[in-house]
């Protein structure tokens, strides 16, 4: 008995050790080969240390050995869900460097494709978000609608994911004659389907319990860690490149930058759903007014950028994507650096998830919408 008493008296001195769990590189909810070194005490997450590089493919280094138009084809292997935005970023950067003015038609097509990509990406994110929280049916609802967009992409440029559609000077091919009709049909259809998303997941009590007041990210932290995209805007960080540095046809359209200051998982979720509505709104404004004209300007056979540094940023589905090119006047770039949104977003994970349960970690990671090749490049 005395022993037990002694143990009880000194119970504050007994410390059960924290233990380490390697979430990944093979794990169902890291969506690829991300490895999180999670320090746990029971169920509670104390610290998360992301280890990246398992799918590092040296894209930035490869860019130094190839010509400028070829860089495009590497960029859609990074964030494969925002492939068109990545393509466009490089194309815009090169066009700005050469001071080429692209036809209006190209701007419209690019913007429509941007928003379609954003929709497809958000749809897939929604599927996966539900699945990470254990609601497996969402996966098929999202993929069902995403299929229509991918069909449109396929008809436009032959590819469904890695589009390679934007090239310096314009787009690779003109749009298919069916394009406008199909996009309009899709918008009509998807406007009906979007409320289903809310019925199935957003309104669910369990879902709200799981996500509200979880994974708080303050505005200061969001800015300090460079969290952009819907994840940053959920903390009140106004960072929409489409608003602040409009490119392509974005100056011509009316849309709202969805902002909220709550900064929890549910807010980030809700903002993405609202962004889908906004994307539909943007496409609707453009789809009927695509001007006639060329789909590309004639570029020189060998593109050579003037000596100097060039930077272009675009808003992908995940946040701000930047292309930084240093040129020494030769036909291939001297140095290329991509600022990928996923990389910055990932490292704010520790700020958000520390102190929560391991199940919350999965939910929070899900609202960051990580694409691993985008992080590793």
């Amino acid at each position, binding site marked *: 008995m005395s022993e037990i008493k002694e143990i009880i008296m000194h119970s504050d001195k007994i410390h059960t050790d924290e*233990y380490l*769990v390697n979430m990944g590189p093979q*794990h*169902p*909810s890291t969506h690829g080969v991300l490895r999180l070194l999670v320090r746990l005490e*029971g*169920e509670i997450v104390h610290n998360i240390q992301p280890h990246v590089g398992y799918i590092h493919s040296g894209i930035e280094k490869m860019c130094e050995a190839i010509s400028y138009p070829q860089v495009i084809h590497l960029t859609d292997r990074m964030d494969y869900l925002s492939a068109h935005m990545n393509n466009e970023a490089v194309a815009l950067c090169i066009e700005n460097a050469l001071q080429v003015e692209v036809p209006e038609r190209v701007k419209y097509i690019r913007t429509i494709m941007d928003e379609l990509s954003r929709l497809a990406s958000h749809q897939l994110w929604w599927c996966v978000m*539900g*699945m*990470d*929280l*254990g*609601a*497996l*049916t969402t*996966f*098929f*609802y999202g993929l*069902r609608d995403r299929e229509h967009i991918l069909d449109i992409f396929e008809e436009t440029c032959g590819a469904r994911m890695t589009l390679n559609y934007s090239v310096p000077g314009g787009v690779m091919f003109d749009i298919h004659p069916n394009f406008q009709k199909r996009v309009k049909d899709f918008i009509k259809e998807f406007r009906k389907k979007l409320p289903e998303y809310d019925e*199935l*997941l957003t309104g*669910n009590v*369990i*879902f709200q*319990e*799981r996500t509200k007041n979880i994974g708080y990210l303050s505005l200061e932290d969001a800015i300090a860690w460079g969290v952009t995209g819907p994840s940053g805007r959920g903390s009140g960080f106004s960072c929409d490149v489409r608003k602040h540095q409009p490119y392509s046809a974005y100056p011509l359209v009316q849309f709202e930058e969805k902002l909220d200051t709550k900064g929890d998982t549910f807010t980030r979720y809700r903002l993405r759903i609202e962004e889908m509505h906004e994307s539909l709104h943007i496409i609707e404004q453009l789809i009927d007014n695509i001007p006639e004209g060329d789909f590309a300007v004639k570029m020189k056979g060998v593109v050579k950028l003037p000596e100097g540094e060039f930077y272009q940023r675009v808003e992908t589905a995940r946040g701000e994507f930047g292309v930084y090119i240093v040129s020494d006047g030769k036909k291939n770039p001297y140095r290329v650096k991509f600022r990928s949104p996923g990389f910055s977003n990932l490292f704010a994970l520790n700020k958000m998830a520390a102190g929560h*349960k*391991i*199940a*919350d*970690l*999965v939910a929070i990671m899900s609202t960051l919408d990580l694409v691993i090749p985008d992080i590793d490049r």
Partner: protein
Amino acid sequence: MGFNIYDFSGMTHNMHLWFSERMSPTATTIVEWTIIGVSYMLFVALFGLFLVYAERKVCAAFQQRLGPTRVGFWGLLQTIADFIKLLMKELIMPKSADRFLYNLAPFIVMIATFLAMAVLPFAKGLQTLDFDIGIFYVTAVSSVGVIGILLAGWSSNNKYSLIGAMRSGAQILSYELSVSLSLVTIIILAGSMQLSVIVESQRDSWFLFKGHIPSLIAFVIFLIAGTAETNRGPFDLAEAESELTAGFHTEYSGIKFAFFFLAEYINMFIVSAMAVTVFLGGWMPLHFGSFESFNVVMDFIPPLVWFFMKVLGVIFLIMWFKWTFPRLRVDQILTLEWKYLLPINLINIILMSLVVLTKFHL
């Protein structure tokens, strides 16, 4: 009554006589045990496989897919093909696993399901054990399964498995309370714990309707807690695929994994069968008080059909939960039990006692 022709007790009695005339009492017992054991094993294997198939078809319907269609007609042989595949797979054991416990765990889970099956009344006279503490027995043996899950998690020497097992332990121990208390509510109404008596006393109206609102509340709680006890649906924390890869059975492969898998489905059957027996009149046909002709027609449908129709209905409900709801978090699951279900249940028991005392029930 119309369904006397469907009474199995005469048949089993005659079988017993036939055996006793030809063999010694010991041999008779052994032969009878063997027959019962083999038929239960066959039933578990076949019905388990059918449930896996049904789940895949149901979930396909919810997800706007077709489900298995290639193997056999409507994909009916798909689960059998899967099962053969699992049988032939290599059994991999982690190097530092506790060999004995690791091998023991699947059997404990399986044994618990078989034990609980023993008292289920499939039809009149078609019940292996019919004791006076039937319900008590079911609640007792159904908790044995959690030992298997805990052992599986502990012996695998895997952190995910251990977290899964601990979650499962906390969860099943808590929800056991709700299951038992909701059954207690009905015991008060029935005045017996013997399952055959409970079924017989629902001849005129099922307990779900007989006990008014308290019965309904007890039924809903039983369904929720029962789902939680089978580690399914929104309560599949022990597996939690997206968090813990596969939870307690992460390290199991081949036939040992199949044991856990099958046990999950058979447990679902047991929970549904209990819900049917206790709340929905077991194998009793649906009767409406004074509609004599309707009642006679209902009587012609064999009790086995009634039983399985009701069970499959409840199983469909449980599947519906799983394919619609997101998973709860471990603290939410315990909050739900201790802060909501348990107090409601206790109040419900008082309500039911009042109903029974005032003879307010139908």
